[in-house]
């Protein structure tokens, strides 16, 4: 049976490698992906339509905004699912919160806590930079949100979970995750009420004193902030749940 499995894996791998030779060369301008009308349209028109220099963000947050909105919803659902499953299956752990054999009683390490104290503000500032510059340079709501969430995780790692939960409790985290999606969908709905289609940001120029292009530019930042809310809080909620078997107390 084992030999058969190896044979199947090797055969499939060989087949995939053989198929990969059919791909266009890297950076080939004649490749079907580069040569399609859609690519040409985005490359030529993104800067004109939205004034956003980073084409990737423009495609993600504007042209394919609907897709990105539900990606955010997927992250939200994943966070809720992990919390719910661990809360249900972690019940046994509540009865006997016994110590693991590798658990130590010592107070948090002085060097670690002081380094984290210095690092966390810089990490959070960088997260805001990544978020705010998402449409100018690489970055955006997902990356900024993950970096922001990581700063809370770092606090939980250096001290313990309660100290991080003083700053962002899991209940509040889930609430803010919902708020993030509401921000995203709210901007889309606002555009709809102003006469456009759902997530047609250009319509926002009727209530804000900006051109249609700049309305799309700024609305992209708005939805990225929504994404960052959800990602930050869900990342922390997942860590808090995973590291404590759903008990949401104690250190790792």
């Amino acid at each position, binding site marked *: 049976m084992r030999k058969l499995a190896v044979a199947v894996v090797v055969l499939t791998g060989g087949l995939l490698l053989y198929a990969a030779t059919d791909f266009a060369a*890297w*950076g080939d301008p004649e490749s079907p992906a580069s040569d399609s009308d859609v690519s040409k349209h985005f490359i030529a028109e993104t800067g004109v339509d939205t004034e956003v220099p*980073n084409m*990737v*963000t423009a495609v993600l947050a504007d042209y394919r905004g609907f897709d990105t909105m539900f990606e955010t919803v997927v992250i939200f659902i994943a966070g809720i699912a992990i919390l719910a499953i661990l809360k249900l299956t972690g019940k046994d752990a509540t009865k006997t919160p016994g110590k*693991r054999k*590798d658990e130590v009683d010592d107070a948090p390490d002085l060097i670690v806590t002081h380094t984290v104290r210095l690092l966390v503000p810089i990490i959070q500032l960088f997260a805001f930079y*990544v978020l705010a510059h998402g449409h100018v340079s*690489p*970055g*955006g709501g*997902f*990356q900024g949100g*993950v*970096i922001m*969430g*990581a700063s809370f*995780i770092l606090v939980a*790692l250096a001290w313990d979970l309660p100290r991080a939960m003083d700053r962002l409790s899991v209940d509040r985290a889930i609430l803010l995750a919902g708020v993030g999606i509401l921000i995203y969908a709210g901007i889309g709905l606002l555009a709809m009420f102003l006469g456009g289609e759902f997530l047609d940001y250009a319509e926002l120029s009727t209530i804000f004193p900006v051109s249609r292009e700049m309305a799309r530019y700024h609305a992209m930042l708005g939805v990225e902030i929504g994404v960052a809310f959800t990602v930050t809080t869900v*990342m922390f909620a*997942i*860590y808090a749940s*995973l*590291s*404590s*078997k759903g008990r949401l107390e104690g250190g*790792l």
Partner: protein
Amino acid sequence: MSGLELFNVFILVFLVVAAVIALRVKDLLIASVVFGIYSFLMCLLWAEMGAVDVAFTEAAVGAGVSAVFLIATVFNVKRDSSD
């Protein structure tokens, strides 16, 4: 072979090595850390190919947060893999 190609081959070889180690090793903690290395090598590859946005996401999500999630989970389950 130019320097850039040599760099690519270097990363790809280490990528395969990291993937095999992550699958073969018995200690799940080591597997998680090696998986983080795998993600970081992928991030280097994306950056080298000019997909900086993807590289950024891979560095933050793949090498950063998911490695922490895996390690947090390993601390709460049996550390040795049975297969």
